[in-house]
């Protein structure tokens, strides 16, 4: 069972500074909840990550394009050849349009799945939903998430000077 406490801040700048200080003092927050993206705050978290979404989408797109071309080639050359005026069966210029579309389609769909997988969504249940203040995190607040610990809470209050502290119990 995980329990947390949340340090509330009024501004993105305040949250950013607090995360930086906490990180330098080896108390890096586990997460930050905010109503908008705070650029660069990720590096002050306990486990920073560089999600390889772009690579996943690139590979998926390449596979999608290859499959799109292969489908046409197999159909037109192997399975259902139509000989018309002795033109080549593998009409590659005309066959480039479908791979172009399947490339983008596969990259987009696999990217969506990667986004959900890497973000841990869908998440119908999470202990943070039990704190009323987390509702505000999607509206106008900035919350730093720390593991619940009395001494850490005292340190946060003394050094980071949050607007308020909130406990989360399940």
């Amino acid at each position, binding site marked *: 069972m995980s329990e947390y406490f949340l340090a509330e801040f009024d501004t993105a700048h305040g949250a950013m500074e607090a995360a930086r200080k906490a990180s330098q003092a080896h108390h890096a927050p586990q997460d930050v909840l905010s109503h908008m993206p705070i650029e660069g705050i990720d590096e002050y978290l306990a486990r920073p990550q560089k999600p390889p979404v772009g690579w996943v989408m690139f590979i998926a797109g390449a596979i999608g394009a290859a499959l799109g071309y292969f489908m046409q080639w197999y159909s037109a050359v192997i399975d259902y050849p139509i000989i018309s005026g002795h033109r080549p069966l593998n009409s590659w210029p005309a066959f480039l349009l479908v791979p172009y579309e399947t490339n983008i*389609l596969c990259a987009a*769909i696999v990217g969506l799945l990667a986004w959900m997988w890497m973000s841990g969504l869908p998440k*119908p249940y999470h202990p943070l939903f039990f704190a009323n203040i987390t509702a505000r995190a999607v509206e106008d607040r900035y919350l730093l998430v720390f593991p619940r610990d009395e001494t850490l809470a005292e340190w946060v209050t003394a050094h980071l000077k949050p607007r308020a502290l909130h406990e989360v119990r399940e």
Partner: protein
Amino acid sequence: MSAEEGTRERWIEGIDSLEEINARICAPILSPAHTWRWWVSLLFSGTLTLIMVVTVTWLFAHGIGIFGNNTTIVWGFPIANYVWWLGIGHAGTLISALLLLTRQKWRGSLNRFAEAMTLFAVSLAGLMPVFHLGRPYYLYWIIPYPNVQGLWPQWRSALVWDFWAVGTYITFSALFWYVGLVPDLAMLRERAKSLWARRIYGAFALGWRGSARHWEIYERYYRYMAGLAVPLVVSVHSIVSLDFAASLEPGWADTIYPPYFVVGALYSGFAMVVVLAAALRWGCSFEPFITPRHFDVIARVLLTASIIMGVSYATEWLWAWYSGDRAERHLVAFLFTGPYAPLYYGQLLFNVVVPQAFWSARVRRNIPAVVIISILINVGMWLERILIVWSTLSHDYLPSVWRIFLPTLWDWLLLFGSLGAFMFMFLLFVRVLPAMPAHELRKLWLEENAS
């Protein structure tokens, strides 16, 4: 902040707090005002939608003989409607993606509803060729699927390319739109009053908590999607133009067609965005988010597009003359002097001449004027689409088959019915989902008010 920046106009006006942004954006969903306006509009558009349903039912029962198509002009209203609606469907994703990549701040007020516009317009566009098939129940033959006859689609056909382009475009646009909605759905989950509304918004919000990890991945994915969207949008109307350009007909077999179609698509799409923006501003009290400055910048885009359209038309005339081809030259003469000439002059007037009014800053900032010109542009673009179909088919190589298209009542009912269906879907959208991206506007407001 310098004095000049302090007096600079803002993209969001008259907002005092983040909470006010959220409240205004959620108001049409959670505490709607002016509901009678909405109900009257819904009744009107619902009636037109019903007319479209009746038309399509009659069409399926009696075949495409109910339209004005004849043995010469085998493509009629449905194909023109298809190209027109698909063109309107182009602005949404392009506004959203291109303006994101170029970091244009006015994107925030427009992208959500423009993407919704895209989805509805492309859905209607996708139906039009199906209505035109004659045997719509064989639609699935265009899809590669394992069948006992061992048949495959003809990959060298522009019509099969259309299927892939439009199918990809609508799927992609729906994904892009939904991903952008997730943070706002989480906000609605917290603000909705009834338990079921909270559950439904909550389910679609996927458990979004605004975590830094969520945002990190979201921002990356959204930006890559925008990067993919731009070449996709350009490809879709280019492929549609190949339905015409890959033929051997006079006036169609031109290399200018793909860029000409893409610019025309953006042109009509931006014009439709103006109409919808004005409607939202009036109906949902979104004045702080959609300011005269937004209309100003869209009017500039429209002005640029109108000039490109004018150059494209002139290029067609020049090409016809310079090619020395008899059929091409006759076709241009037919456009200017034939029975469709009044429509052609209307097209030139609405698409090229009238938008020149946007050189004046006073016109660009006058919302009713921008809306009226935008409606005229949409009429002009529809005339262009129908004339592309009609004029070439009416007047191609063999004089003995020259005929004229006379629309029937059903042609008009399908066109206006589809407009009603579009309006109907849009009206439902504004009452169910946030028509403005709250998280982007909050960020923009904070940037503009940072001191």
